[in-house]
């Protein structure tokens, strides 16, 4: 079998088949098209403006490692004028996150970007190891997910950044579309394909790899010999997502465009105004000042359950009622430090609803 030549440069030997297009291309053309597509995603959505301070949510895994490398490359090549930072969350999982954070620390040197690590322990007083010791392996992903989201925003505030970019790739987003359909979660289905999300008060979050296939991210890391960490979390992985992921991989094997097709389907859903109107209005948490759709944000609810030894109260309504029946939260439980959001619009609202807590102005 004679080697095929690259469909783009018609000179070099083709080394990979692009899942999105079926094109057979060489290594150099692959680097070029991969980077250029991410650049186009960024410019078409006007994600950044010169002078923006941008934190890359870095776990040490393949997606965020490739994202840090590509963001640095594009920032230099196209003169975005961004200040880039690495932001890592230490969930406190011995034998998993401690090892992957070593990778992030190497990335800090390799890419010469400042790194901030914020731990669940310092923010919530609980490591994931301690949480799993109390709640077991069944619902621990709920805690981890809720805590991580808030920790990233708080870490970003410490760094003074305007924007967090994450390594979510096309496969991740297609998975989320499927999961939201299967759960009937119309609100999330309506927004899960958005490249950039921003509450009026919070830091922007976006996904420059929204259209990048996982296969290409892994190939890119392999060909560039990037240093990344790959071990499954030692606590039970999100089983529901696992099913969606295996299903999606089977679809991709039969028809590689399935991933991008599902994303397009997700983008094409339009949530009717009257459906949107039934969704809860965002307010701020009375206890910690973080954005919330209830009096208490999800993280405070989960933390109170942990502190009172009734961890399920943040997960099911029934357990929450049981907790409320036990009386109000004791004075001496650990709470999350008050959140000082970066914009001023929220600050006024916070002060109006907040008695005796440190001033945010």
């Amino acid at each position, binding site marked *: *079998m004679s080697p*095929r030549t690259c469909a783009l440069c018609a000179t070099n*030997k*083709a*080394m*990979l*088949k692009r899942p999105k297009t079926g094109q*057979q291309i060489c290594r150099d053309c692959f680097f070029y098209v991969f980077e250029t597509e991410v650049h186009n995603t960024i410019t078409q959505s006007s994600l950044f403006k010169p002078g923006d301070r941008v934190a890359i949510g870095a*776990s*040490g*895994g*393949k*997606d*965020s*490692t490739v994202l840090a490398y590509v963001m640095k490359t594009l920032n230099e090549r196209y003169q975005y004028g961004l200040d880039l930072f690495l932001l890592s969350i230490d969930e406190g999982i011995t034998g998993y996150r401690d090892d*992957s954070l070593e990778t992030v620390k190497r990335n800090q040197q390799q890419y010469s970007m400042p790194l901030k690590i914020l731990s669940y322990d310092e923010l919530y007083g609980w490591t994931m190891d301690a949480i799993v010791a109390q709640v077991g392996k069944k619902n621990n992903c709920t805690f981890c997910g809720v805590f991580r989201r808030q920790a990233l925003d708080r870490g970003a505030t410490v760094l003074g950044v305007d924007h967090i970019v994450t*390594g979510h790739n096309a496969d991740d987003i297609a998975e989320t579309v499927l999961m939201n359909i299967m759960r009937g979660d119309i609100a999330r289905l309506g927004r899960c394909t958005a490249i950039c999300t921003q509450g009026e008060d919070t830091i922007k979050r976006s996904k420059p790899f929204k259209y990048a296939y*996982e*296969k290409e*991210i*892994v*190939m890119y890391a*392999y*060909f560039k010999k990037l240093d*990344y*960490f*790959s*071990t*499954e*979390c030692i606590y039970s*992985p999100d089983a529901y997502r696992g099913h969606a*992921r*295996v299903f999606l*991989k*089977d679809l*991709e*094997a039969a028809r590689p465009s399935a991933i991008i097709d599902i994303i397009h389907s997700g983008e094409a859903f339009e949530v009717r105004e009257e459906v949107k109107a039934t969704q809860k209005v965002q307010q701020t948490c009375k206890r910690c000042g973080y954005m919330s759709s209830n009096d208490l944000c999800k993280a405070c609810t989960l933390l109170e359950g942990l502190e009172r030894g009734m961890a399920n109260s943040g997960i099911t309504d029934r357990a929450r009622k049981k907790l409320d029946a036990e009386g109000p939260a004791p004075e001496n439980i650990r709470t999350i430090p008050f959140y000082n959001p970066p914009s001023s619009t929220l600050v006024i609202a916070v002060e109006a609803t907040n008695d005796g807590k440190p001033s945010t102005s």
Partner: protein
Amino acid sequence: MSDSSESASVSLKIEFSGGLELLFSNQRSHKLKIPAQVPKTYGDAASDSDNKPADITFLIHYLRDNLLKERVELFMENGTVRPGILVLVNDTDWELEGEGDYVLKDGDEVVFISTLHGG
């Protein structure tokens, strides 16, 4: 070792990454020799009439039976690698090389990368 057995085997370098190495004694790089001619149906007794040159489909079965230490379901499915595992032959995507039908040559390097691990 006689001349005939020398010529009848293929030396390969195998690499596992992306977390797959955990299924293979946590060792990323392996060197091995497989027969150049193998039964058409994996697991059949060797016979002169029903042989084929060793290909990647054979290699995958061979790795499962000789190197894999745990959780076969994370490596194989339906007679091939599980969807989500990338295979490269001499740094080229196996989808350009005929996938499982690629006939292995002496000195080939085959890399298996799992993409299924999150970050």
